């Protein structure tokens, strides 16, 4: 009977060759540095925006200059009505749309002014689900690539940054979903996506998007 240490050593030896062949993806350092630089820029922009919001809140009478909440505006006034439930945009349950893409590191999304504002208000609600690679017969790829996208405002455009080299892995489809965004908004986002200048190809996929057959497989 082998001791526990010997069992562990045996298992480790059996895997040592396999683990030795495991190398980090090319471009890892560049990706890390890129994400770090973007995060720094975002934090700086956020702190500026926060200061602006604070000043605006004082100006609008929401908070006092000392930082405490000002008395609430009665809901039957015009200022209160703007925040009533009836004035909020109604959203529907999210759908997923697969966009056939030529793989690349960055996806550029062009949106009009209204949608831009919506994006800016809810940046974390957009998620990406990458799928792809050749599926073995009968296999099901359940979404494991869902992650927040990195949204960068670049002179009227938003860039969705995919923080890893997609092309290296051969992923060939992209599903966007937006919890809280309306179906119409999702459709417009999907329609606006271009990859290397080519428009995306729209295709409905069954819900839920996190547990679906690969639409391209």
């Amino acid at each position, binding site marked *: 009977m082998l001791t526990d240490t010997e069992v562990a050593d045996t298992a480790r030896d059996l895997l040592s060759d396999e683990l030795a062949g495991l190398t980090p993806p090319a471009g890892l350092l560049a990706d890390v540095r890129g994400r770090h630089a973007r995060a720094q820029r975002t934090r700086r922009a956020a702190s500026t925006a926060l200061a602006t919001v604070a000043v605006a809140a004082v100006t609008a009478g929401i908070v006092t200059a000392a930082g405490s909440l000002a008395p609430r505006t009665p809901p039957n006034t015009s200022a209160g009505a703007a925040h009533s439930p009836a004035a909020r945009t109604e959203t529907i349950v999210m759908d997923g749309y697969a966009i056939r893409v030529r793989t690349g590191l960055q996806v550029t999304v062009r949106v009009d002014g209204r949608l831009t504002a919506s994006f800016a208000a809810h940046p974390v609600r957009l998620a990406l689900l990458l799928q792809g690679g050749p599926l073995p017969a009968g296999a099901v790829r359940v979404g494991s690539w869902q*992650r927040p996208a990195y949204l960068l405002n670049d002179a009227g455009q938003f860039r969705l940054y995919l923080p890893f080299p997609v092309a290296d892995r051969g992923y060939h489809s992209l599903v966007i979903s937006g919890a809280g965004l309306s179906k119409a908004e999702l459709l417009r986002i999907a329609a606006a996506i271009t990859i290397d200048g080519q428009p995306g190809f729209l295709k409905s996929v069954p819900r839920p998007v996190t547990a679906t057959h690969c639409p391209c497989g």
Partner: protein
Amino acid sequence: MNLGKDFDDFVRCSSPRLLRTSYLLASDRGHAEDLLQEALVRTARHWRTARSAPEAYTRRIIVNLATDRWRARQRRPPEVPFGEDAEVLDSRVSPDAGIGPDERQLIIGALRQLPYQQRAVAVLRYWDGASVAETAALLGISEGTVKSYAARAIARLRELLPDRIEAPPC
């Protein structure tokens, strides 16, 4: 904070080891690469703090992220293995490695079958060479629990790999 050459050197030197740890914890090459990249980004964010022991700092983040992922997966539909890892790794292992792809998959499969906490303890203790105290600190559990998980993990590996792990002939 701007990152200097020391960060680049750290990434180049340590990322293969850290990727192996990620892979053993996540049991999926794609997730392992994601864990590593996310951990390195967080390390970069706190480089001033992390630079004294960056590998330990990053390994801690990887373990935390792997634990978060494991918890999140409990609330999601089960994932079906893609089979991609086997293909990718088979193509990278030299043909004279002496171990067939079936056996490697058997071991990877055995590791995957371990409950997450046991797998994490086994990986940290036996693949990363962390001490009982270090493993306990990394996982936020007591040393006694580490010993218990390690013993259970080894016992389970012994059950799952009866042909590969057997006493040598007298």
